[in-house]
Each structure stands twice: as structure tokens, then as C-alpha cells.
């Protein structure tokens, strides 16, 4: 607590007042907060789009929206959730926690940090504004396959391309900052293999970002040139090939899905030991498993393209490498279970979300394994089974881990406890809602319902109705989370420094909330050993 008083008395170190605090801030906590609030806003905007989609699919036939608008909703929902909600949320967590966890005073490059956040609101304003333009917004699916996104795209596609460029620049700058912080700013004496797993997973994620976001920027640049400058990268008439688009896109796309899940692994690896009151089982194997997953992610991309007409050797290669990913992922799941084995577990909200993550992410992993079987994929391709699969890994996967992280660190961030029973209610409504929404989609897909359609055959009606009910339960229960956070900031009861009984890690040795500049003097060897995993 002493450090809080210190910073309060020293005007230079305290935050500025008013809006300029947030506009000009270079403080990692302020920027972390901005990222998290931004992603929450995007989560609700993307969520409204999801509910529009589900409302239309409540019954067969066209009731709510026109097919053209439906296509814009599926596209924008995907783009907003991936680039606006999940990725910025993890960057926000990284900003808040990584400097504290490695015992640094701030991120390595604070000014760049400010820039990488403030690009985002402009990028997404531009992207959302396309919905109001003549011809509508992007309607080609979040994977924007050429020629849908080039020859047949609405005129607003150029704005979409620039928005993607801006998000890419933001992510790359954020990733560079994370790497510089972790490699250069660690407390003296903290070895790489002593870092918390959240830091490790983010280090690897940052390298993935630097490796593939430029490829994404490249592929949208090729689109831009095809549309406006007469090149023919993806135009067969000029010697190009639309299949090339899919290869380049998925070379980015598959590592991208690990960008959205590796930090989640890190979060869960922090939370489960705390509430099991045991050290994480198999720390080193967790690090190596994460690194192997990251490596494998570069050589599996064509499993999204089994049906484009690859040769048998290609199908087999991508099928087996994809299946191989299940091995390091399995190592992780077993490690989490082993951590809990004979632990004295309690089930506070963060732990509930983390446990649901382990169970439901594994279900998503299994459906992924089914999809990796090339001959079976010819049946599943572009059906609701795929939708069920990636929503299982992204919603009760990534999103649940973000919720878990928010509840876990919220007392640290705000200095106040949140309302535990409201948190548990939020968890159970989310858990039930998610499963009601996405589990029936497996059956719909296996029965042959295609994805991205506003209307469907009558035999799919019942499961769609169930899924829509679940979606509304899930969607509206997120308001509880917002209410809980607001109450926590305003009037929660004072949190202790440790917050949780079984907590380790450098962040719990700081006051709650931590001082504006956390470790202006590096943590001592004693603090480090107390925090070590």
C-alpha cells in the first residue's frame, strides 16, 4: 500500500485527468483497460449481429431480414468477433498483466502501445460504416474468398481492405511490444522457464502474430490490386487462380485460430493452479506443447480446403499433420486435469469458467479431429457442423477464458471484489446458453444443413429453434457481466492484495489496485521465489 501513497503524492506519476488521460496515455494499465472496454463493446456489437442471424433462423422462411443483409451480418459478425472482440481482449489482458507478471514498470514501448490501441476505433468505425454504404457492407463471409470479395464484391470492399490493414498494423505493433517487454524487461533473475504460463503463451502468440498478420495484409493488398489496378492474382482470365487466394488466406487463417486460443491456454493455466491450490502440473511440457502447437499451425492450413481438388498426397499430408496437433493439445488438457487431481478445489466464478473451458474446448477439439479426416470432411464441409466446431473452440474456448481472466483479475484491477453469486449466475446462464446454442448445430450439420444461409429446409426447424433460444439466453446473460463489473468498480468491497487464497505470481504481491507504475524497482529475489511456479 505504501507505493500507492507514494504515487498519489507525486503528481508526475499519477494519471492525468479527463479524456486526455485516455487519449495520450502511455500507461500499460490504462491501455489495457481501453483494450478490454473496446473489446467488450465489440463483443456486444458482434453479439447483436449474431442475435440478428439467430432470430432470422428461428423459423424456416424469411421473416426478419433480407438475404443480402443476412450475408452482411454473418460476415460482419465473424470479422467483429475475431478482430474486434477476441484479439483485442487478449491484447488488453497482455497489457495489464505481462509487465506486472515479469516485474517490469511498464511495456517496453509505451508510445507505440498508445498508437496500437488508438488505431483500432478508427479501423472498426470504418469497417462498421460500410454497412451504411451503397451496396451494403462486406457480404462474402469473414474468410472473404476471391472472387466473391473481388469481382462480385460490393463497392465498400475497399474500406474493408483498409480496415484490415489498420487492424493488422495494430496487432503487429502490439505483438512487437509484447515480445520486447518479455525479452528485455524481465525482472533481474527471472529466467524464461520461470515465467508464468500466461506470459509464455503470449510470447509465442506474439511471434505467430508477427509471422502471419503481414501475410493477411499481403492478401488484402492483392485483392486491392485486383480490384483497382488491373492485376490478376485471383482472376483466372488474367492467368491468376482463385484457389491461390484460399492458400494464402489460410496460411494466415490457421495460425490465426491459435492466436485466439494460446493466450486462453495461458489464462487457464494461471487460474486452475490457484483454485486447486497446487502448482501447475508439467510446467515445462506446457511450454513445449504450446511451442509445438505454434509450429504445427504453419503446416496444416489446407485442411480448410480439402474439397478444392488437392491431390491425394496433399490431402494425406494435411490430414495427418492436423491430427498431430491433438497430441500437444492433449498434453495440455491432461496437465490441467493432473493439476486438479487431489487438489483442494474451490469453485469461484473464474474457476467455473476455466473448468467449463477445459471441458467444452475439448469437445470443440474432438469435432475438429472429426473435421480433420479428409474423406469425412467432404461430408462436413461448409455445413453447420463446422459452425458448431469453431464456435465451441471460440465461445466456450476463447471467450470463456477471457471471462475467467476478467473475474480472476478484476479484484486486482479495481481493488474491489465483484459480486460472487451474480458471477456464478452469469456463469451458469452462459454455460447453459452456450450449449443450447451450439450443441444442436452438430446435429444440423451432420444432417446436411449448409452454413451461411438465411432460409433452410423444414426438417432443420426444431434444432434451429432450440439454438436460437440458447443464443438469446447466452446473449442477454452477458448483460449480467457488465452490471457486475460496474457494481464492482463503484461499490465492491475492498479486495486484499492476494485476493485468492491459493494465488501465486508477482501480480498478487502488489496492492489491489496496483500502483500506477507497478515495479518501478524490480521485485527482489525473495519476491520472485515466492511467485515462482
Amino acid at each position, binding site marked *: 500500500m505504501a507505493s500507492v501513497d507514494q504515487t498519489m503524492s507525486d503528481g508526475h506519476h499519477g494519471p492525468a485527468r479527463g479524456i486526455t488521460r485516455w487519449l495520450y496515455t502511455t500507461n500499460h494499465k490504462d491501455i489495457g483497460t481501453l483494450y478490454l472496454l473496446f473489446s467488450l463493446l465489440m463483443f456486444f456489437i458482434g453479439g447483436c449481429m449474431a442475435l440478428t442471424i439467430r432470430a432470422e433462423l428461428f423459423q424456416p422462411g424469411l421473416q426478419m431480414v433480407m438475404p443480402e443483409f443476412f450475408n452482411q451480418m454473418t460476415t460482419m459478425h465473424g470479422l467483429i468477433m475475431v478482430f474486434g472482440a477476441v484479439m483485442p481482449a487478449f491484447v488488453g489482458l497482455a497489457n495489464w498483466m505481462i509487465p506486472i507478471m515479469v516485474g*517490469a*514498470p511498464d511495456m*517496453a*514501448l509505451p508510445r507505440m502501445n498508445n498508437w496500437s490501441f488508438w488505431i483500432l476505433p478508427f479501423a472498426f468505425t470504418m469497417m462498421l460504416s460500410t454497412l451504411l454504404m451503397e*451496396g451494403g457492407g462486406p457480404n462474402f463471409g469473414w474468410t472473404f474468398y476471391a472472387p466473391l470479395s473481388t*469481382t*462480385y464484391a*460490393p*463497392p465498400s470492399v475497399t474500406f474493408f481492405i483498409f480496415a484490415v490493414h489498420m487492424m493488422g498494423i495494430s496487432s*503487429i505493433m502490439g505483438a*512487437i511490444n509484447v*515480445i*520486447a517487454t518479455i*525479452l*528485455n*524487461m524481465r*525482472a*533481474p533473475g527471472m529466467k524464461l522457464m520461470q515465467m508464468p504460463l500466461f506470459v509464455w503463451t503470449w510470447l509465442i502468440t506474439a511471434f505467430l502474430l*508477427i*509471422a*502471419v*498478420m*503481414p*501475410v*493477411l*495484409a*499481403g*492478401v488484402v493488398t*492483392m485483392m486491392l490490386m485486383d480490384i483497382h489496378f*488491373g492485376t490478376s*492474382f485471383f482472376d*483466372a*482470365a*488474367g*492467368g491468376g*487462380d482463385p*484457389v*491461390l487466394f484460399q*492458400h*494464402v488466406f489460410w*496460411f*494466415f487463417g490457421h495460425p490465426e485460430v491459435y492466436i485466439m486460443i494460446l493466450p486462453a491456454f495461458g489464462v487457464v493455466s494461471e487460474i486452475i493452479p490457484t483454485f486447486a491450490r497446487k502448482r501447475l502440473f508439467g510446467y515445462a511440457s506446457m511450454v513445449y506443447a504450446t511451442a509445438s502447437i505454434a509450429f504445427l499451425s504453419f503446416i496444416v492450413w489446407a485442411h480448410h480446403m480439402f474439397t478444392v*481438388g*488437392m*491431390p491425394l498426397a*496433399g490431402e494425406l499430408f494435411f490430414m495427418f499433420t492436423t491430427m498431430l496437433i491433438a497430441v500437444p493439445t492433449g498434453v495440455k488438457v491432461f496437465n490441467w486435469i493432473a493439476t486438479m487431481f487431489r487438489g483442494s478445489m474451490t469453485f469461484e466464478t473464474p474457476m467455473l469458467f476455466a473448468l467449463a473451458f477445459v471441458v467444452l474446448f475439448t469437445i470443440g477439439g474432438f469435432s475438429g479431429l472429426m473435421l480433420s479426416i479428409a474423406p469425412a470432411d467432404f461430408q462436413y464441409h461448409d455445413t453447420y457442423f463446422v459452425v458448431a466446431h469453431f464456435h465451441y473452440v471460440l465461445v466456450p474456448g476463447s471467450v470463456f477464458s477471457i471471462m475467467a481472466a476478467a473475474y480472476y483479475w478484476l479484484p486486482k484491477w479495481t481493488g474491489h471484489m465483484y459480486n460472487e453469486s451474480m458471477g456464478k449466475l452469469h456463469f451458469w446462464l452462459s454455460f447453459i446458453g452456450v450449449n443450447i446454442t451450439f450443441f444442436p448445430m452438430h446435429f444440423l450439420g451432420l444432417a446436411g444443413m449448409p452454413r451461411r444461409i438465411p432460409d433452410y429446409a423444414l426438417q432443420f426447424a426444431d434444432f434451429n429453434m432450440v439454438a436460437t433460444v440458447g443464443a438469446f439466453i447466452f446473449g442477454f446473460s452477458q448483460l449480467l457481466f457488465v452490471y457486475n463489473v460496474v457494481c464492482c468498480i463503484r461499490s465492491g468491497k475492498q479486495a486484499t492484495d492476494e485476493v485468492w487464497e491459493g494465488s501465486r505470481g508477482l501480480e498478487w504481491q502488489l496492492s489491489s489496485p496496483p500502483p500506477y507504475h507497478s515495479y*518501478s524497482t*524490480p521485485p527482489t529475489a525473495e519476491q520472485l521465489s515466492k511467485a515462482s511456479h
Partner: protein
Amino acid sequence: MQQSPSNHRPLLLRLTLLTVLMFGFGFLLVPLYDVFCQITGLNGKVLNTGPVTEVGVDTERRIRVQFIAVNNEAMPWQFAPVERELTVYPGEMKHTAYRVTNPSVRFMVGQAVPSVAPSEAAEYLHKVNCFCFENQPLQAGETKDMPLLFTVDAALPEHISTITLSYTLFDITPKAQPAATRLPKDSRRML
């Protein structure tokens, strides 16, 4: 502070370089993809063009070569093979043609893009001369026979007895014409 900002420079430089390299790599995938398809003969892309040395005709085998014509959606030309199917001996030079008519009232330029099925056969189908090598200008109402001279390699694997050669005809008038006569931008949306 453990680190002053200047100490980050070497790392920053390396990471920025990596970013730039990966941006370049994205573009490098384009030629890599073409080279890969060329070597493996995937995608049915026929890249064996130009003169071939005749190695003698293998009269023991007969290969069916089928011809298909497809119009890309906005292309109004009538486009069809003169002969739907030919039976050839491996190594034998064959001549055939595709007939096109431009029924529209304006000058147009077409471009045919070939594809071979099965893709395994692509590297054994040599096109000595093909209308797909060049773009095809056609006046309004004009009809033309576009020549195709080809041979099937005697090394064609035993199990292949039928090869399908498909051409997709694209309208490339806007690209082939000077900028002044280009179609208005909005026409793209009407396709």
C-alpha cells in the same frame, strides 16, 4: 527502470525486419504456388506449350481426348469445340479447333483458360499451338475457328485412357481496351 528505450532497438529492428519479410513472403506464395502447380501438374494447369520433338507414334494404345467449352458467366460468345471427342495415338500430332461467335453488337476480346482432367494427365498433354496462348479479338457478329494443335505424350501412365480438356472463356474486353473505352465502374456489380 531496468531498460532504457534505446536498448530495445536491436530487437525492434529484428522484429520489424521479420514483419517486412513475412509481408514479402505472402507475395512470394504467388510464384511458389505456380511453380508448385507446374512441377506437380496440379490444378490441371497445362503448362506444356510450344514445339515438341516427335518421338514416334505408339499405335498400341488409343487415348480418348474430350473437349469441353465453358463460358465464364458474363461472356455472351457462342463457344463450342468443332469436334467433341478425338481418339489419338500417343505421340501423334492432332489438329482440331473451337468455334466462337461474337453475337453482341460491339467489338470484344476473349481469353480462354485451359484445364485438364484428371490433373495427373496435365503434364502429358502437350499443346504445340493453342488459341489460349493469346487473347482473341472478335468484331461484332464475327465467327472464327480457333486452332488447337496438340499431342499426348507416350509416357502417359497406363491407367489413363481418357483425358478431358476444358476451356473457360473469359470476357477481357475492359482490360484489353484502352482506359478511355472502359466500362463504367458500376458494371462490375451488375455481373
